[in-house]
């Protein structure tokens, strides 16, 4: 076994174990920390695939930003020591059956399909190329999705502020009436 394979096995075992713990843990804060482990191992997989920039984005944005946001909202909305009541066996059984059926069908399809790679030479992806393609309107440019995502981000920011603003409409309605 090469070092690559060892690392891949390590990361996949970590991802699968911690994903299962994330969705089954009965303490919500622990579930959030298991999610953090899943995201960090995924960043490791990105490094193995040789996408350094995306691994860094994954670490800062997902593992840094979103998990902190989730932990903050957990602390705002529930007690740390609170434990969920166990899921009913009926719901648990049928959900597991549905998920496993889907997984088995998908895996069979993956193993059955003949993937064919292109013969073209691999391109070295560095930061300069990423920045140029992101803002280019040429054949290989991605300026349209970039603009769309910037509009989405500003809309989401405004929406989050408006929704979470203090003082519900109920109070203002009674005042105007």
């Amino acid at each position, binding site marked *: 076994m090469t070092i690559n394979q060892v690392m891949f096995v390590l990361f996949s075992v970590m991802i699968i174990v911690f994903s299962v713990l994330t969705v089954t843990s009965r303490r919500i804060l622990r579930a959030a920390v298991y999610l953090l482990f899943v*995201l960090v191992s995924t960043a490791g997989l990105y490094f193995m695939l040789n996408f350094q920039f995306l691994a860094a984005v994954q670490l800062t944005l997902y593992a840094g930003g979103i998990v902190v946001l989730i932990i903050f909202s957990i602390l705002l909305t529930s007690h740390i020591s609170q434990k969920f009541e166990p899921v009913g066996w009926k719901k648990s059984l049928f*959900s597991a059956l549905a998920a496993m059926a889907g997984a088995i069908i998908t895996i069979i399809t993956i193993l059955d399909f003949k993937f064919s790679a292109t013969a073209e030479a691999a391109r070295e992806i560095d930061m300069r190329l990423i920045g140029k393609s992101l803002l280019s309107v040429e054949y290989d440019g991605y300026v349209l999705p970039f603009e769309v995502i910037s509009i989405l981000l500003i809309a989401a920011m405004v929406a989050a502020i408006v929704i979470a603003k203090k003082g519900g409409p109920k109070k203002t309605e009674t005042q105007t009436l």
Partner: protein
Amino acid sequence: MNTGIPLQYFLILAAIMFFVGIYGFLTRRNLITILMSVELILNSVNINFLAFNRYLFPHKMEGLFFSLFVIGVAAAEAAVAIAIIINIYRRFATINVEDVNEMKY
């Protein structure tokens, strides 16, 4: 490049992660844990995009950019979802989906 790891291994790993997320989405009753399951699902899709990009089309960058945009969408989604969750908690004092059953206020 990645010697000794077939493309299928990455795809199977992503499939397992995706359906673990589906299982969590179906069984969880707390809004924040449901959001965490959705993050798992989005993450597994990213692995797929990147593996396809690296193994099948190494001369292109579609997979990289679409994962980048998926991460951006996930961040926006998490921000809005958590704003909504905190607002729900303020009105109902709970974020259990079975106790939150009216939209009118």
